């Protein structure tokens, strides 16, 4: 009798577990990871967007298993709220100034923007690319270019690079890797190293009822392991020291 009950229970557990195991891991990731993550692993279900937007969605109970943000701020906030495991840094980036190949604004360096009157695309203040851009401009004492040029603010870095690539903006501040993704239509102008804010990507497992912890761990191991580091490097990202 006891053996029959145990077997029935076991069967029930297996039946309940089976659909979850078959489901893809839900990865919420910063827009700048749009190309590299699917190239590394096609299996997960991806939701790409501005890191701050994704953070907000997770706070409101979105069914994410993994969160990868373009700055430590969002992942650390979730960690401190008890909504994700301790984040680890897995990639490094830097800012560049992107201009269209035709360069209608005649932008030759970031200092060209001082004269004003150009169409400038930047990230919104709350999204990592927007925060980094403003930080860089304050360090360079160039915040005034945000008022002397016609500035359009985007909700993620992909929109900024698209605007420049389509010629809708004379220049835009993006990550180096986003510049590489549109290199056939744009040119990247370097920005001073001394003024670069440290651009660090962090990843963590989301804590919520029903989370696929094993799937999330496997994905994070892949991203931080040899295959992930290889893919990130191939897509132009910098890498933190191993460990």
């Amino acid at each position, binding site marked *: 009798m006891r053996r029959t009950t145990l077997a029935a229970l076991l069967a029930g557990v297996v039946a309940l577990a089976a659909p979850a195991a078959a489901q893809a891991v839900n990865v919420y990731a910063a827009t700048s990871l749009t190309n590299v993550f699917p190239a590394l692993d096609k299996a997960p279900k991806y939701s790409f967007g501005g890191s701050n937007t994704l953070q907000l969605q997770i706070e409101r109970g979105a069914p994410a298993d993994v969160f990868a943000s373009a700055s430590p701020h969002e992942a650390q906030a979730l960690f401190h709220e008890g909504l994700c495991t301790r984040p680890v840094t897995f990639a490094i*980036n830097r800012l*560049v100034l992107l201009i269209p190949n035709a360069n209608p604004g005649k932008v030759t360096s970031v200092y060209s923007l001082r004269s004003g009157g150009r169409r400038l695309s930047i990230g919104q203040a709350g999204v990592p690319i927007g925060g980094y851009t403003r930080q860089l401009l304050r*360090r*360079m004492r160039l915040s005034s270019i945000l008022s002397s040029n016609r500035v359009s603010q985007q909700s993620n870095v992909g929109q900024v690079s698209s605007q420049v690539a389509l010629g809708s903006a004379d220049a835009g501040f993006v990550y*180096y890797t986003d510049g590489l993704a549109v290199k056939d239509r744009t040119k990247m102008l370097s920005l001073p190293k*001394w003024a670069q*804010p440290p651009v660090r990507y962090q990843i963590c497992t989301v804590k919520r009822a029903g989370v696929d912890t094993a799937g999330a761990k496997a994905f994070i191991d892949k991203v931080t392991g040899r295959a992930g580091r290889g893919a990130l490097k191939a897509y132009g*990202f910098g890498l933190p020291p191993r460990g």
Partner: protein
Amino acid sequence: MHRHEGLSRGAFLRVGAGALGGTVVGVLGTGAAGAAPQPPAPQGDDLGFLAFGAVGERATLAFYRTALKTPGLFNAAERRTLDEARKAKRTNIDKINAVLGEDAVGSKDFAFDLPKSAFTTRAKAVELGASLEELLVGVYLDGAAYAADPGTRLLVSRILTVDGQLLAALRMMKGGPAAAGLPIPLGVEQAGDALDKLITVPGSPGGG
């Protein structure tokens, strides 16, 4: 060959104070006598003076460390002077980073590629050190004049006083007069271009 025989701490401070003379007093200028100094609260682009200072101070710290580690370049008295400078740099970094808060420049944010050839002779080493201090003093002069926040102006001016002393000491090591006048004020654009040649960002992609 004329070799500077080093400075006592007292002489070191006097030389620097003399070299800076009235300039710092001038830029500090107009505060009411006896009023409590305002704590720094950088406004807008004031951050640029401090951010450049934090990176530049780390570059000069790397210089003094390397100079002290390189055998045979400096005599004992000079090494004491360089060690005082090294300690002053640490203090400057701590003061700046305390104000920068989340924007503080960490010890691992940058690596400094000081040319090895600069440490093959005493003269070359002193030349490199003086050129780095001139960048800092130039930017701090600009900051002391143009920072919007009075507390930030005060902080920048105090660090300018310290670095002006270090520059004077290095000039004396070069055999020149300590009080050769302050460098011209420098914008962070110009000074940053010079500093960028000596720094790398560890892990940064695309050789950046």
